[in-house]
Every structure is written in structure tokens, then in C-alpha cells.
């Protein structure tokens, strides 16, 4: 299943379309088994059942055997949030490997898997500094002025609608703020950088990767020192590109 891939500056800024990304059942299945927070044994089948990946028509044909898909078994059922959550957590790693050309050793999955606690760490830390701006060069502001940090916090989510993807990105931004707050006193130059990856898995499908960059890092650090994670949206808008 080839899904349109979009890069965006911030969560509201300039948007550009890249080549689509193939999110086949096998890739998403194994990666979400690894990175997902929920214990689900057959992510590949779940993923294919939920989104119809094209796996069925991709099988070598056997004369007289139809490419039947069991999608309508979902009648009277609801998609398990754990399954869609696991799918969401996989997409960022797949994007980083294929599009950013990150090495396996550049992708550290750190989501704490601690329920009922305010999250203070992102899904991933990725060592992307040497790979930036890469595909983001078409949306980034003057890249010669940017000092790309080595490690990047990355949030990854799957949502079923455009509206819920939008709200997911805003939620993810708050999670990045929590990460920055922990580093603001010791590593102020890393504050304001991050990636947010969202996968809208029902039509109109898309993978959107938001590049979060500081436009006023000093003010953002000051706000984090004074207010912790309780930063007003207007402050984020004034301190981050495209937010």
C-alpha cells in the first residue's frame, strides 16, 4: 500500500509532497511488534484487516482462488485502540530508515510503557543530526543558520481522520515540550527541535512528518525555565517555525 508522504514545517507551516511511502503489512507488522506499546501477537494481520494494505492482491495468483479480503468481519466490532496505537508507533522508524536513510543504530525506541503517568519522554530518540535537513530542505528556513542537534525527539501517531491527526500533532507537540523542559538548563541548544510523524490510515490516507524548529530558541528556553511545560500556545507560535 503506497501512502502519500508529506513534509511540513511545524504543525501549521509550509507543506510539500514527497514520493509515496509503501506501508506494506510485513514492514508495519514486525516494526509495530517491536515499537508498539501493546502486546498484540499478529500485528501484520491486524494491520491488513484494518486498512486493506493490498497484501491479498499481492499474493501470487492461484487459478480459481479469489483475492478475498475479510474486512467486513469488522461488522459489529471496533478497531482496538492498542492495535492502531502500535501501528502509529512504527511509522516514524520506517520513515527514518527509508527516507532519512538513518542507520539501525540511529533509532532508539524509548517510549516508557508506563501507564497513568504524564509522559516526559518521546517515542524515539533518533540520531539524525548528520542526516539533516535531507528531505526537509524544501521546507526548512535558511538551513545555513541552523545548528542541527545530533539527537532528535520523535513522536509517532496513527489516527483515522484528518481532524484527529491534526489534534494528534498538537498533542505530540506538547510531548516534545516536556522533553525540551528536561533539557533546557543543561542543553539549551537542543531545545525546540523535533519530528512529529502522523499516519492517517483511513482515506484520505497520508503520512505527514512535521519538522519542528525553533525560531526564537532563547525565548523558548526562558519560557520553559519560568513556566515548565505549561507554555501557552501563543508562546509556541512565536518561538517555533510554522506552529
Amino acid at each position, binding site marked *: 500500500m503506497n501512502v502519500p508522504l508529506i513534509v511540513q514545517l511545524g504543525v501549521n507551516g509550509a507543506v510539500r509532497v514527497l514520493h509515496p511511502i509503501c506501508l506494506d503489512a510485513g514492514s508495519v507488522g514486525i516494526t509495530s511488534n517491536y515499537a508498539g506499546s501493546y502486546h498484540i501477537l499478529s500485528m501484520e494481520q491486524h494491520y491488513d484487516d484494518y486498512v486493506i494494505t493490498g497484501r491479498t492482491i499481492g499474493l*501470487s495468483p492461484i487459478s480459481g482462488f479469489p483475492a478475498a479480503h475479510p474486512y467486513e468481519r469488522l461488522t459489529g466490532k471496533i478497531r482496538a485502540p492498542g492495535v492502531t496505537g502500535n501501528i502509529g508507533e512504527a511509522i516514524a522508524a520506517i520513515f527514518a530508515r527509508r527516507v532519512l536513510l538513518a542507520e539501525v543504530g540511529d533509532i532508539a525506541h524509548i517510549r516508557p510503557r508506563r501507564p497513568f503517568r504524564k509522559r516526559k519522554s518521546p517515542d524515539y530518540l533518533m540520531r539524525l543530526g548528520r542526516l539533516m535537513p535531507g528531505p526537509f530542505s524544501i521546507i526548512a528556513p535558511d538551513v545555513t543558520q541552523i545548528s542541527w542537534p545530533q539527537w532528535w525527539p520523535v513522536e509517532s501517531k496513527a489516527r483515522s481522520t484528518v481532524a484527529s491527526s491534526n489534534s494528534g500533532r498538537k498533542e505530540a507537540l506538547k510531548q516534545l515540550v516536556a522533553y525540551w523542559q528536561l533539557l533546557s538548563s543543561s542543553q539549551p541548544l537542543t531545545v525546540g527541535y523535533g519530528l512529529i510523524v502522523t499516519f492517517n490510515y483511513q482515506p484520505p490516507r497520508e503520512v505527514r512528518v512535521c519538522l519542528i524548529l525553533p525560531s526564537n530558541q532563547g525565548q523558548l528556553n526562558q519560557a520553559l525555565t519560568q513556566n515548565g511545560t505549561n507554555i501557552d500556545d501563543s508562546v509556541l507560535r512565536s518561538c517555533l517555525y510554522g506552529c
Partner: protein
Amino acid sequence: MAAETDNFIIATFALWAGDFSYCEQLLREFSLSHDAPSLDQSVERPEDFLRATGVLRLRQLWQKRGEFRKLSLDYTGTDIEITDKPIILETTHLRATLWRTGEREFLLQGYLKDLSWQSGLFERAHVHLSGVAEKKDSILPADSAGTQAEGRPYMPLGAAWIVEGNPFIQVELSDLGLLEASGIWTGSHLPESAELITGAFHTLLSTLDIPLAQTSR
């Protein structure tokens, strides 16, 4: 040169595979040998998040090990003891667990224990792909994977293929170098010892850990 953080990343792979002892060993080296901070306090650098996550994973692992021991007490005194230690298969750069998942079904979960072998692993897998490949949705030939020709989608970096024989094995390698191989024993009688099964899976693992030049001789 191996990065300082490699042990953490390999430990996450080991945990995925159920290679608990190795995961514990790596996390102890990475997190406990340093003064890892808590995720609730300020950290000095991004790598501290990895160390803190390592400490948390160790606690979670020990808790689950305790639960397992309590749950498995119900089966003490029976002929076969339940264990949390699967068969471990190892080659120079790869490590894998082998589980029995059904009467005739077996699952290998493999991963890089040396991240410098990443390119070698994918190259070896694509040799299989160009041989007896399983056709998968939208997967293109090996030479297109990972490259971005005009207008073409970003394709999976991994591969899927089959190994004929008994056990019959279906193999899949993911973008992160995680290997899953499902085997089914096709004989009418089960083998009398594990070696016929472990041998087949070990051979599979070995074929992914040989430099290409060596195999072409």
C-alpha cells in the same frame, strides 16, 4: 566503531525477540554501570534518556520475571518444566531466539548483535529475494529497495523469502533488521530431537552472516 548507545538499541531488539538474559546483560552494562538519571528529573544530555529508559526496562523485566515464576509454579512437579529461556542461536553478528509456538510450528526472532553488520545483513537478504522470493504486496525487485527512482515510492528495505525443506520456513526481514522466520514441521511424525529443527534455523541465520564475496567463490 560501535557507538556508546549501541548496547541500548541491541537490548531493545533482544527484548523484542524474548532474549531476556542478553537484554538484561546489555542494559546492566549500559545503564547500571553509569549513574543513570530518572525520567522525572532534569537530564544532562539526550543519551541520559536512553540510560533512564534502560533502568526502567530492567525494573520492568525483573517484575515480569517474578510474575512468570509465580505463574509457572502451577506446573512444578510435571514431567517438563516451563522455562523463560528459549533456544538461543548465534552467529558472528546475529543472535536469535527460537520458540515452539505450536505442535509443529516454530518461530525464530533474530536481530543484529553487532550493528556494523547492518549492510551485510540486508545485502544477504536481498540475495535470497532475488532467488526464491515470496511475492509481497507492492514489493519491487531487490535493486529498487532503498533507492528513490523518479516517482517511485519509498520501498521496504527488508525482504521476504522461503526456505524449502522440513521444516518449511518463511522468512521476513524488516527495515530495522529484525528477522522473523516461521517454520512448520511437515513430516507425519515429529523429530526425536531438537537438532533437526534448530539446525535448519541455524543454517538460515548463518547464510545471513557470510560476506558476499565468500559465498560467490
